[in-house]
């Protein structure tokens, strides 16, 4: 507004003014556009510093040797700041996990879909209710009514496939991404 008013006063010929202001508008727009784009890229490169750094990402996968875990035993490892429950399941436990009607479950999921090898169950040990760590890893821990895990915070019971069977938790224990690097070594993440 200001500049137009001033132009009115200062520029005598209307014609030149029109050509001028059109040219100026184009120049204005491209300059502003370019400056904003540059500013946006600069802002992003600064904000990006808050994303996980290289040293953090380097620890985002971890290899676990399963050979010392005997049948029926469990191991807890840390991965990305969370406990990972690894259970070497017995034949009974596998049978228990598979003799369930999927339709009866809160969060419907087949045991076959939750494991890569039937005897090895790998789940994130964080209760899906409000984030407590369930019991059931150590010998003598209460394992809940379904022989898996029991969350002491609000009484959620998980079965031997880490599925929610009773209590307030809405979902099964998460299965982290992992793969067998060799027969007895898994890489989580």
């Amino acid at each position: 507004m200001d500049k137009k008013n001033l132009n009115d006063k200062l520029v005598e010929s209307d014609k030149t003014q029109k050509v001028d202001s059109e040219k100026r508008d184009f120049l204005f727009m491209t300059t502003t556009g370019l400056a904003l784009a540059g500013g946006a890229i600069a802002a992003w490169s600064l904000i990006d510093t808050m994303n996980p750094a290289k040293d953090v990402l380097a620890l985002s996968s971890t290899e676990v040797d399963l050979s010392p875990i005997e049948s029926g035993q469990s191991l807890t490892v840390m991965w990305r700041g969370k406990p990972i429950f690894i259970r070497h399941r017995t034949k009974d436990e596998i049978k228990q996990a598979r003799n369930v009607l999927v339709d009866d479950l809160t969060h419907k999921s087949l045991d076959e879909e939750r494991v890569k090898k039937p005897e090895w169950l790998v789940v994130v040990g964080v209760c899906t209710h409000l984030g407590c760590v369930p019991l059931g890893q150590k010998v003598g821990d209460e394992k809940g009514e379904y022989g898996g895990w029991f969350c002491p915070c609000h009484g959620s019971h998980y079965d031997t496939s880490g599925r929610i069977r009773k209590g307030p938790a809405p979902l099964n224990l998460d299965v982290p991404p992992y793969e067998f690097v060799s027969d007895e070594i898994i890489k989580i993440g």
Partner: protein
Amino acid sequence: MSSEKNELKGVTGWIDKRLPVFTFINHNLRDYPTPKNLSYFWNFGSLAGVTLVIMIVTGILLAMQYTANADLAFDSVERIMRDVNNGWLLRYIHMNGASMFFIVVYIHIFRGLYYGSFKAPREILWILGVLILLLMMATAFMGYVLPWGQMSFWGATVITNLFSAFPVIGDYIVTFLWGGFSVDNPTLTRFFVLHYLMPFLIVGVVGLHIVALHQFGSNNPLGIDVKSEGDTIPFHPYYTVKDYFGLGVFLIIFFGLVFFAPNFLGHPDNYIPADPLVTPAHIVPEWYFLPFYAILRAVPDKLMGVILMFAAVMVLFVLPWLDTHKTRSAQFRPYYKQFFWLFFINCLILGWVGSMPAEGLYVLISRLATGYYFLFFLVILPILSRYENTRTIPTSIAASVLSDKFGNEKTSTENI
């Protein structure tokens, strides 16, 4: 043009009626009448403001990654340089930004000195500016300690030890500053906290600085008051676009340093982790402290040196009452102009001897330069205020601009 006519409508109008932010912005950044003859030396105020914002933004992001602990600080800075996404960029911007900030502010100050911007009725504006400089110096000094390299550590040791020069209480002050019996972890932690706090104090004082500025408006190269509307133009778009252009030039230099010579202004020793048992052969402060460092070392007596160094900054506070000459701009003061340039060169010389070892000829030079520094403020300025005759001063800004048009190119070259 006039804000009374532009009644704001809709949501903005509703808000503005209750909280006049838009009127405020309009008043201070759009319609704000500015002398039409400002040179590029008037860009440095806004450049300083932009640099302050850059420093605060990068500083906050750095603080998210930095660890203020004597055992971990150096490592955490190296982690920023190597592992954090764009961390090297963040740190190099912050590091070189400090230097750029001082370059800009020093030019801003010399401009004020040359064109008499500190004179009535802008004394408080000037005093607030000197206060900003003081806060900047403290902030920069404490920031330089944070990477906990050799220069950080020994710089902190030397500068804090200055306070031991005061009789009786000196040692207590130093122990108090350190939070221990040497520069150590407590010192680092408090320096970090204060380094984080002080920029926000600077922001506050900058706000006051701008309020004071807008009370009487900008000074100008002629140093004469605005007499009519014909002398001014609205800040927007004229000075916004001029400031943007200046910012572009500034950023080219700034980022040229950041990307291609990031350690040009730094000292290699600061890439050696702090070691309380080994003093570097040649301790030098950052370049922006060198003139003051030279004054400190020019005096053989410890206490006097410290007092003179502080006085070198403090004298700026009383400048409006040392130079009371009615004419502001050095353009019309033939003698002041000469002494001003001598003073400017003298400051460069002080900076240069500050970087040299304190021995032989350098000591003599630093003493002469220190002498002139104070002579300029305390003797030359008061005398000139009384006896200097000025050249003919144009009646108004508009009149001067018109006379320029009729082939009088001389004044514009003399500005520089």
